[in-house]
C-alpha cells in the first residue's frame, strides 16, 4: 500500500485509492466465501432430517443408508459402515443352502457369519419396538430388493425412502427442537 502524504500548503492528503481497492478486494472475497458456503448449506449439500411418522405402534426407526455395496447403520454408537456381500443362507427342512452374490445356490453345512449379522441381530432382537428405515441412494436402487430381502427373511419390518447422492442425512427424534 502506498501512503503518500502530500504537503500542499494548508492540506495533508492521503491517496486512498489503493486502500479502497484492497478493502473492496477483501470484502469481495469474503462475500464470495460466504455466498458459496450459504449455497452449499441450503443447496444440494444441505442435510436432510427425517422425522419418522408416528403411528399407533410407536416403533422406533433404525436408520440405514444403502448405496449398493455398503450399509451405513446410524447406531447409538455412531455411524457403522458395513459391507454387503449378498451371500444369503436359507434353511429349508433342516438343511442349509447358500445363495451367493450371483444368485447361485449350493448346499452347505450351516450358515457362516456375515458382516451384516450385528445389524440384523439387533433389529431381530428389537423386532417388537424397532424397524429398519432404509435410505436408498441412487447407486443402491438396482440392488435394493436383494438388500431388503435380508430384513424380510427375518421378518424385520422396513420402510424405505430415496435420497440423493451425497446429501447428508440424519434422523430427527420426535421431540427434537428444530432450528
Amino acid at each position, binding site marked *: 500500500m502506498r501512503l503518500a502524504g502530500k504537503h500542499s500548503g494548508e492540506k495533508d492528503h492521503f491517496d486512498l485509492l489503493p486502500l479502497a481497492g484492497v*478493502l473492496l478486494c477483501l470484502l469481495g472475497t469474503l462475500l464470495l466465501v460466504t455466498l458459496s458456503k450459504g449455497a452449499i448449506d441450503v443447496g444440494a449439500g444441505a442435510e436432510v432430517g427425517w422425522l419418522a411418522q408416528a403411528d399407533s405402534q410407536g416403533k422406533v426407526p433404525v436408520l440405514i443408508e444403502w448405496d449398493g455395496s455398503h450399509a451405513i447403520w446410524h447406531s447409538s454408537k455412531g455411524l457403522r459402515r458395513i459391507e454387503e456381500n449378498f451371500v444369503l443362507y436359507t434353511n429349508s427342512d433342516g438343511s442349509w443352502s447358500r445363495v451367493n452374490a450371483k444368485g447361485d445356490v449350493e448346499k452347505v453345512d450351516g450358515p457362516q457369519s456375515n458382516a451384516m449379522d450385528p445389524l440384523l441381530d439387533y433389529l431381530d432382537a428389537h423386532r417388537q419396538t424397532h424397524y429398519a428405515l432404509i435410505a436408498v441412494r441412487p447407486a443402491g436402487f438396482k440392488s435394493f430388493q436383494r438388500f431388503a430381502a435380508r430384513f424380510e427373511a427375518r421378518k424385520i*419390518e422396513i420402510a424405505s425412502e430415496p435420497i440423493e447422492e451425497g446429501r447428508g442425512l440424519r434422523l430427527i427424534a420426535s421431540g427434537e427442537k*428444530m432450528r
Partner: protein
Amino acid sequence: MKRRRRAQFEGPWLMPEALLLTTGVGALLLVLIFASLLTGAAVLVKRVPRQKPALEETVWVLCSGGRIVIFEPDALEKQLRAGLGEPTVSSAGDWAGKYSARAFETEQLQVSGEAKAAVNKDFFQSSAHLDVSILVRRKPNQGEDQAAIQTPGSDFQKLLVEKDNSSDFFFFFVDPDSIESYRVARGLAAKAGFGVGWTPIGHGEPARIAMSGNGREANMQ
C-alpha cells in the same frame, strides 16, 4: 500581534461514495454471515412413514427420465397372452418361450413378457410352475414431467379425482433419475388422501411386475 496560522491537519479523507459502498457491503456481509451460520446446521425435515400391506386396488405409476406414466398391468398382460391359450404341463416350456418373445407398444409404453417354466416329472405325477412377469418401459418424451404433474387438469391430477382414496392406492416404480418427479406425484397423491408406496428400479431398467404367485403384492407407506 498577528499570530501565524498553523498548517491545519486533515485526517484521511474518504470519498462519500467509497464510504457508502464499504458500509453497505459490510452490512450485507454481516447479514450473510449471520444467515450462513443459521442455515449451516439447518435440516430439511421429511416425514417418513412405515411400510404396511396395501389392501386397496393399486394404481401403477412408472417414474423414469424425469417423467411419470400410469399403466394397468392386467390389461397389458391380457394383450401379451392374447392368442397363446392356456399353458398345460406339457406345453409350459413352449408357452413360456412364446410369452417371453412377445412385445408391443402403446402410446406411452413399451411392453414385453418374461416367463420361466419349471417342470417336474416323476413316475406318478408331472407338474409345471410358471413365473410370469411383464416388463414396462416408458417411451421417449412420453408421460408428464414435474411441471405437468403440478398443472391443474394434468392426466395425473385427473386420475386423482377419478380414483377413490378409500379403495385405491398409488404404487410407484422409481428410476434414480426421477426421484423429484416421484416426490411431486407422491405428494399430490398423499395430499389427496391416497395411500402410497414405491420400489426403486435400476437406472434405465424396466418396471417388472410379476403376474404369478405373490409377485404383485405391493406395500404402501
